């Protein structure tokens, strides 16, 4: 059985995760993002509708992403794409998340952290 990461822990990390995926994939649609996150996290992170779309729409309002609409299989598909400002911001956000993970490791696994630092 896969241990899923709780939404509480995920909350602040969702934006950088979505931004990182968009940075690597030019443009993506909602379902594609959830599938990619599921695949990369080996099923440990499940993006629900209620978690993904508020983040995507917020990024759009803030000018981080733009949308493109296309007709696919008799329905409209909305693709999300980083703007130049969003690309810059994504680097910043990803670095911030990496820093956060490093800090968490320092707290949770001091021995390993010391090893990493010494190495």
């Amino acid at each position: 059985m896969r241990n899923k990461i709780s939404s509480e822990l995920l909350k602040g990390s969702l934006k950088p995760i979505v931004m990182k995926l968009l940075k690597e994939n030019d443009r993506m649609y909602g379902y594609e993002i959830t599938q990619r996150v599921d695949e990369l996290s080996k099923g440990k992170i499940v993006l629900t509708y209620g978690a993904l779309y508020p983040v995507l729409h917020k990024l759009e309002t803030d000018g981080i992403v733009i949308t493109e609409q296309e007709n696919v299989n008799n329905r409209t598909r909305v693709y999300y794409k980083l703007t130049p400002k969003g690309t810059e911001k994504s680097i910043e956000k990803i670095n911030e998340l990496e820093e956060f993970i490093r800090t968490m490791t320092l707290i949770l696994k001091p021995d390993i952290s010391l090893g990493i630092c010494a190495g």
Partner: protein
Amino acid sequence: MCRLNEQQISDISARLKADQICYSHLFEDLLDHICCDIEDKIEHGIDYNNAYKSVFEKIGLCGLKEIQEATIFYVKLNLIVMKKFMNVMAIAGTILLALTLVFKTMHWPGGSMLMLLGFLVIFLGFFPIGLLNLKKELSLDFLSGKFFVYLIGFITLVETGAALMFTAMQWPGTKYLTIISWVLMLFLFFPMLFIQVLKNDKNRITNLGLVIFAFIFIGINIVSSYNKQVSPYNTVSYTLITQELNYYKTAIEDEYILIRKENPRAIDTLNQLDNALESVEQIVNKYHEGILNGSTDIYNVSQQFMHKSNIDPWNDNSFRELKTALNNYGVLAINFSNENKTLKHLIENKLGTGPLTDKAFGNSCISWEMRTFLSPGTPVGIYTHLQQILKDVYMVKYEIMSDLTKNLAPEL
């Protein structure tokens, strides 16, 4: 790869419509996502109906609506926080200005500080947040013409607020701030608003009419207030006060004729009062002359006087000369009141001893009244106020003489 047919997509679409999903392109997002999820399940061997059921069960009964609400809340979170902050600022500003009104009316110390705080909260707190809020809500670009109009409007508003605050606080520079706010309003804000309205097709005629009406209305007000400012003194009140003063002067002459005829000895006692009145009148005339010639520092003194919000009116040295003359006059006048309580009350009231007094006549008359009497930016208020003091001095004398002649009546 399995694809849903038009009917199936239409069914899912109907479900979303029933849940009133309408925010931005969330409908398209969800429709495609749900279709993809169902298609994935069908791929894994589940039939359409069960796949449909399973996906919607995962979303939950109110799930779609909740997703829409969560999206709107998250997108507008900053706006919601900003609006709450704006409300707090508006309430705080209103309370402070209302308290100012109470403090000023009651002549309690600290009124000026409250007014200053109230203005700062409204003009540097409420309005800037309002502008940012407007920008966010209308999704305006910082470089867009529309935002520029709002920005100019905001600057004009803050400038006008500063002019108002300076006026209320009796600070120097009011005149220049007022002129700047007029220039900003008439030559920058209105022309830009006019251009924006012309550019916009929606309700152009009505909006143009409103802008022109507002321009004319504000223009007329500015011209009339300018005229008021350049007049040498507040014509209406000064003229009325002078008319009243002349009335008392004539009435006193009539009373003199009567007293001379009936009780010449009383004239001697009245002479002392006359001398005291004369010295008050001389000082008032000197101040008046100085104000008109610009050769006296009385205006500057009064301005400094106004700026001290926690001033102790009894011990302040401004107008000392006039206060002394008024006190001499008041002490003599009160001797004439005898047992007549109404007359005593009138003398105390008009010559400014008041209920909190140390019985020094003239102090409160100058101190308290001056605060409300001074007009900003010009020596108009002091000029008129001095005339008012002189009129009150004559009125007191008239009332004393009138009381004397009433007492003489039984002897006739």
